[in-house]
């Protein structure tokens, strides 16, 4: 375990129960200072509960939560050095933009001079490029602008940690992508720890430098985005993060091979540590190549083709294994490059690209 002082946030064996219902349990997580961490998982996995325990809106039933090395159990939200960007923003409708941003500054004790409050609020608004909007009322702002106000309001107090609860969920796709980039550069500029809760794996992978994948109230894998994607720790992670093909298989006793359900035997990947017996193989669509070669490992028939511009997605009915998803980059503009629905085709892949999990 790393020492608490280099971690901005630490969960130690945390559980949260509501009556007989366990929301999260066995949560151990260390977030280094200045990291951008994403809590990723399907709805109901407990990621928001974890965020709310950092914010102080929930208290753990078991275990300890530390912020900046200080135990936080029993400390109310208004005494914590963290600020939150709420889902749907929770901006104060009776205050204008500047008053919303200044709200946190006005709570500071000893009191800050009014001129200083105005200066800092303006600075925060400039930072989210809303400099000229200070006197607007909240309902006069668009969704994207409200998002920025919420961001300015949360960073104006210079928190140790910024919490973001699905901050981009209400924005349209284009705005979302723009905000993703903006959040990343804001985090670098401020140098503070960001904790992002999201159910969108693309968002988690693209923005954060540490992803904690959660399922049914537990953390199932923690690691950098690339590691999560390339070396999923379980079938759930492989399925939830990115697209994946699942293939029933058996690990041969003694022999160093994996036999797929249709009888094809393949070399066991070096890092697969499964013991002999039933197994599940996960295979990324982009690690498969379609080849016009009847000697390829697997053979099938193309059933659908979805043209995506830079790449093409195929559905292939593989002999004895069912539907496969295959993503092919376009290597040339030659039309004959594309496989046609109905065409017999071979599938080739490196057996080391397989992720083998016990069934």
């Amino acid at each position: 375990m790393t020492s608490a002082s280099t971690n901005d946030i630490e969960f130690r064996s945390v559980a949260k129960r509501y009556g007989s219902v366990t929301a999260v349990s066995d949560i151990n997580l260390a977030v280094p200072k200045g990291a951008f961490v994403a809590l990723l998982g399907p709805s109901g996995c407990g990621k928001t509960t974890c965020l709310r325990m950092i914010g102080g809106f929930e208290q753990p039933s078991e275990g300890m939560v530390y912020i900046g090395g200080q135990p936080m159990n029993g400390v109310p939200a208004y005494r914590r050095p963290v600020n939150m960007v709420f889902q749907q923003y929770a901006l104060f409708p009776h205050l204008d933009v500047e008053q919303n941003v200044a709200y946190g500054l006005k709570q500071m004790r000893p009191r800050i001079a009014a001129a200083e409050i105005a200066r800092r609020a303006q600075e925060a608004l400039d930072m989210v490029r809303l400099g000229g909007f200070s006197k607007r009322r909240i309902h006069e702002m668009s969704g994207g602008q409200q998002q920025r106000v919420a961001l300015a309001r949360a960073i104006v107090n210079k928190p140790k940690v910024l919490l973001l609860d699905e901050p981009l969920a209400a924005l349209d796709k284009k705005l979302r992508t723009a905000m993703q980039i903006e959040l990343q550069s804001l985090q670098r500029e401020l140098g503070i720890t960001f904790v992002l809760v999201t159910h969108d794996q693309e968002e988690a992978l693209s923005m954060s430098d540490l992803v904690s994948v959660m399922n049914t109230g537990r953390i199932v894998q923690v690691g950098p985005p690339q590691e999560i994607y390339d070396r999923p720790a379980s079938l759930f992670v492989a399925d939830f993060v990115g697209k994946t093909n699942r293939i029933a298989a058996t690990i041969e006793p003694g022999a160093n091979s994996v036999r797929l359900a249709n009888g094809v035997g393949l070399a066991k990947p070096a890092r697969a540590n499964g013991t002999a017996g039933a197994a599940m193989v996960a295979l990324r669509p982009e690690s498969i190549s379609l080849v016009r070669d009847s000697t390829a490992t697997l053979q099938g028939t193309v059933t659908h083709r979805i043209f995506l511009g830079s790449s093409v997605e195929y559905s292939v009915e593989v002999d004895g294994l069912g539907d496969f998803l295959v993503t092919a980059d376009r290597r040339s503009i030659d039309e004959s490059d594309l496989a046609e629905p109905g065409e017999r085709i071979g599938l080739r892949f490196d057996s080391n690209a397989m992720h083998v999990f016990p069934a």
Partner: protein
Amino acid sequence: MRAAMNTKRNLVTAALVAPAAAWLFVFLVLPFVAMLVFAFGERAPEGGYQAAFTFAQFANLPTRATAFWNTLLLAPAGALLCLVVAYPTAYHLAVKANPRYRLILVSLVVVPFWTSLLVRTYAWMYILGSRGIPNLLAMVGIEDVRLLNTPGAVLLGIVYGYLPLMIMPIYVSLEKLDRRLLEASADLGAKPVSTFFGVTLPLSLPGVMTGVALVTILLLGEYLIPQLLGGGKVFFIGNALVDLFLQSRNWPFGSAIAVTLVAVVVVVLMVAMRIAWRVAGTRQVDLV
């Protein structure tokens, strides 16, 4: 085609509005016009109204100054007292009470309306009268306590009778208050008291203004409570009007008082709306 549709829509609108409009015209507009006419007339020798055009009735208003004074003092005072009692109640119901029992508790607020205000005010007459609390106090040696027929008794009756009308609008505005705003306030470092004065109270002001305006306006025309609990001593305009119309049959003077009261109510209402708009920052304040 479009014109025909518009005509049809206008007809439907007219049909929907007609009953209420007719009702208001017959029972509000016509009587008010009659009162305006009466107010500038003279009392007939045998009582009632005699055509004339004179300001004599308005010149006579100072003779009922006490009734005006009592009404204009005790109506807002009663409304504010109601507010002081109602706000914590509404706050508890909307914010603190277990949601499972909330509906039951809220309906308990309305239960008193199942019995007529007259009956309930009579009950207070007995409780405050010489055979009620003063009698109990005399038993423990505290003699000659006078409760009935005092301004205090009237205020008590007012708070008792109008409390639900104050609780409900405040409850509604607190109930629809977004809880995440309270969390956001705490997140930004506001202690619970600061959150109350910075977020909860301002956002419930429309409900407060509605309640205060509603109760004040109703109290300006109050007759029953001062009659029963104030005796002849605490006299409201409503009581003066009953006297003038039914006892001394001085319709023109009664009309002049009534018209003046309506004018006062309109001014009070407009001032209250201005304040509510200013404080709430929007024009979405429903007063009545």
